[in-house]
């Protein structure tokens, strides 16, 4: 089972598709969570997920706005997508009857 941050990272990378790399993933996570996210947390989690076979990374092209430095591109593997889907379904199932969940919201508090 994925951790919460691992799920966020895989989902952000999947949303960004071909444009998934460190800075873009961080921006995506910060926009979604409204919280700051350390670049160190991104890279250590990317390494962990890559070791588990849930992500694939490679060095991409350098751009002028990065000071001529290369990007570390990220791609979610089929195993990563499966793991993220399982996590999402588990969260959905466990939230069903919670007061903030889909059916809980209709219950009188």
């Amino acid at each position, binding site marked *: 089972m994925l951790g919460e941050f691992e799920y966020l990272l895989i989902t952000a990378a999947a949303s960004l598709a071909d444009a998934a790399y460190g*800075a873009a993933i961080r921006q995506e996570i910060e926009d979604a969570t409204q919280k700051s996210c350390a670049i160190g947390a991104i*890279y*250590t989690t990317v390494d962990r997920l890559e070791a588990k076979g849930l992500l694939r990374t490679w060095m991409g092209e350098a751009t002028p706005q*990065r000071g001529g430095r*290369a990007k570390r591109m990220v791609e979610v593997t089929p195993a990563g997508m499966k793991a993220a889907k399982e996590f999402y379904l588990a969260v959905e199932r466990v939230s069903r009857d919670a007061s903030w969940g889909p059916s809980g919201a209709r219950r009188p508090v």
Partner: protein
Amino acid sequence: MKVAWRLSEWASRLLEPAEREAVLGDLTEAGRGPLLSFVEVFDLVLRRQAGHWKNWRPWVAAFGISVPTSFLFMGDSVALCAGFVKLAGDATGGNIAPGIMILALKALVLTGWSWTCGYLVGDVSGRTLWCSILAYGSPCLFCLSRFRIESLSRSSLLLFVFPLAVGIWHGLRGPRVGSRMAVCAASIITLLAVISEVCGPGGTGNACSWIGSLVLTCPAWFLAIASLAVTKESAKPETSLLEREQHESI
């Protein structure tokens, strides 16, 4: 501000080259400012260093090899220097050739021990080398500050440092020692150590000296056994690749 960027660049040197490139690029692109960038790079360096310490290798290199052998090496260095000073004092009378031979043998053994220890430390814990160097440096500084032998210079404590540094360099960057050469070197070091102990001032009765020699000879045999194991494993391609991967990940 320039200082903060310099610090970021400096801190990022502790990262892998590809990761350094990607991280510094990400921070430039995000435009978070030099100070925040330094904090972020430092945070990643700390995370990476903490990750290395989950393995047994850095612990063995720093606290199993560096700290104990630094004291033994300093003891041997001082004994060697004291021997030469004593021999120089006796030079006026009698035959000093046997004494010179024994001291030369001891110097050779000390060189062999310190090189093998350095090689092992460099090979086992390349990414946490700074800590192993601290583990060697701290006892040396402690002993240097308390050195009180008037007939000897303080630098006599540090005779082992040069071969140790060369060994570390070879362990980090040099070609791997072949199994035959490693076994041969371990045998020669052991033989020379035994001869120098037997012919030394205490002869066969100095237990402490024998134990010290035994401890300092262990890294040479560890290298020999490890290189034999690697040679054996390389016969099985899949296992050796896995081993190599595990070794490189540290």
